[in-house]
């Protein structure tokens, strides 16, 4: 019987049509997603690839690593990357810690319900309030005539500008970036804290754990991947940000996105391929950050059911 069905041409022909049919229908299947993939290819992948390939070419179109090594040799570019990484790193770390504290306070602190909903609503707004208007808000607050500057000077006799305060320093920008980094952390981490089940606390208490042991051995290990993942997301978020810093200082501030902006505007590096390398460096750093993010994310999802 088995042998017959293998050798029998009639049976073989019978089983063929569904296969042939599927093979024939495949193109129409793909038609449904074709517009999306063409769009992604034309307006996301190819333009990026164009810059990446350009970063490894010289003016004659030959392969070279000169542009990449130039990123490290050129003191001004090196400083720009250093400043950008420093700003992004500290605004991510501080934003994540402050955001975590706020999230824990509103979820676990026994505060009334309206505090939580108000905080979540405000965080949604503030995490999207970036760019040029954010710079205006800070200039109106801590600028030379800003409310806080004037109050500190007239009431407390503290002149922050005499003390060397300046927005255009690493810490000045970190303080400003925290205005959208902290709320973003609150928005992302609150569901993770909700995921800490009450039963775990009770189980720990039943087994005789102290509050400190419960935090050290249950809460922190469970939250750790989400926390690190979000830190990385915040890092990438501020690494590509340009509008706020540009509104403060125009093209003079030496951070990577502003340098790239000036390069696109007027080839200030006098080498288009070095400009591509600058862009490649940005993608490399945010890409690396996101690989870690995805990795932490898949680890943290195990607990958030």
């Amino acid at each position: 019987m088995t042998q017959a069905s293998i050798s029998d041409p009639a049976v073989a022909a019978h089983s063929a049509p569904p296969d042939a049919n599927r093979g024939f229908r495949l193109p129409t299947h793909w038609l449904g997603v074709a517009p999306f993939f063409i769009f992604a290819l034309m307006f996301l992948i190819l333009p990026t690839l164009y810059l990446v390939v350009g970063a490894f070419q010289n003016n004659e179109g030959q392969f070279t690593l000169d542009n990449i090594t130039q990123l490290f040799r050129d003191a001004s570019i090196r400083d720009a990357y250093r400043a950008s990484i420093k700003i992004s790193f500290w605004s991510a770390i501080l934003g994540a810690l402050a955001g975590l504290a706020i999230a824990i306070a509103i979820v676990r602190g026994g505060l009334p319900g309206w505090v939580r909903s108000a905080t979540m609503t405000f965080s949604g707004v503030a995490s999207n309030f970036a760019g040029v208007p954010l710079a205006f808000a800070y200039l109106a607050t801590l600028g030379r005539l800003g409310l806080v500057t004037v109050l500190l000077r007239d009431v407390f006799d503290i002149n922050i500008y005499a003390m060397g305060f300046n927005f255009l320093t690493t810490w000045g920008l970190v303080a400003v970036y925290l205005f959208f980094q902290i709320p973003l952390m609150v928005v992302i981490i609150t569901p993770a804290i909700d995921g800490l089940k009450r039963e775990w606390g009770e189980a720990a208490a039943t087994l005789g754990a102290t509050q400190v042991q419960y935090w050290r051995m249950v809460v922190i290990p469970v939250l750790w991947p989400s926390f690190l993942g979000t830190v990385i997301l915040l890092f990438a978020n501020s690494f590509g940000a340009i509008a706020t810093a540009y509104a403060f200082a125009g093209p003079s501030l030496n951070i990577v996105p502003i340098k790239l902006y000036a390069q696109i505007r007027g080839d200030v590096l006098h080498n288009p391929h070095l400009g591509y390398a600058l862009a490649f460096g940005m993608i490399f750093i945010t890409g690396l950050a996101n690989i870690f993010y995805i990795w932490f994310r898949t680890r943290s999802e195990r607990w958030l059911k």
Partner: protein
Amino acid sequence: MKGSRFWAWLIFAVGTAYFFIPLIATFEFSLRMRRGEYSFDAYRVVFGDPRFQETFAYSVTVAIFTIILGVALVVPTAYWIRLRMPHLRPIVEFATLLPLIIPAIVIVFGYIRMYGSSSPLPFLATARGTDALLVIGYATLALPYMYRAVDTGLRTIDVRTLTEAAQILGAGWITIIARIILPNVLIAVLSGAFLTFAIVIGEFTMASLLNRPAFGPYLQNIGANRAYEPAALAIIAFAITWGCMSVIQILARFAPKSANRPN
């Protein structure tokens, strides 16, 4: 327990101060235009400025086209992935996340190099073409949020049964997507649309590098040249963002809560 509540209130109070002092200070600053007394002069100047009206109208138009493009791109794709090609989901999701990995300034840099006036696809040769490229660029920026919103919406409806029912009644694909799927995920689509609007309306980098007369570059220009108007504009921008987020929250209340199917 009592101690932890004290700390929670303290953290909440410090956070509130950190976020509200700049907003209050900005509002106070925006009222100072007339010497010696508070007035809404700065707002009057801003709203009366023809450049404000032009750039704002331009950005609203661009935002609307961005939303249309985003919906037209994302709804059929997310639908098709859910219905027929679930194995492609990771690839599509990865593609929608790319704009979070590739900074906007890099994307627009690529556009400028690829679609210049001497390229095979010279978007940048005409003003209309550049407008189109700006809309496309914004659609990529909004892609992660739009896709996430629509996909969540699709999860709450029974895509397969709706599709089969419509097919039995003789509906074609375009009818199914436009008249069955879209109305069913309308709330999710609208949430994505308002978030897109909030992102696009004051966007600076792409508009500035493509030299379009949008609201973001106008803001930057005012900031460099005026004293009190920027504060008024910051308050206006905050109000717009707040408005968009409030609409999204209100919409969420109408959204279906649980999935009909566990997929």
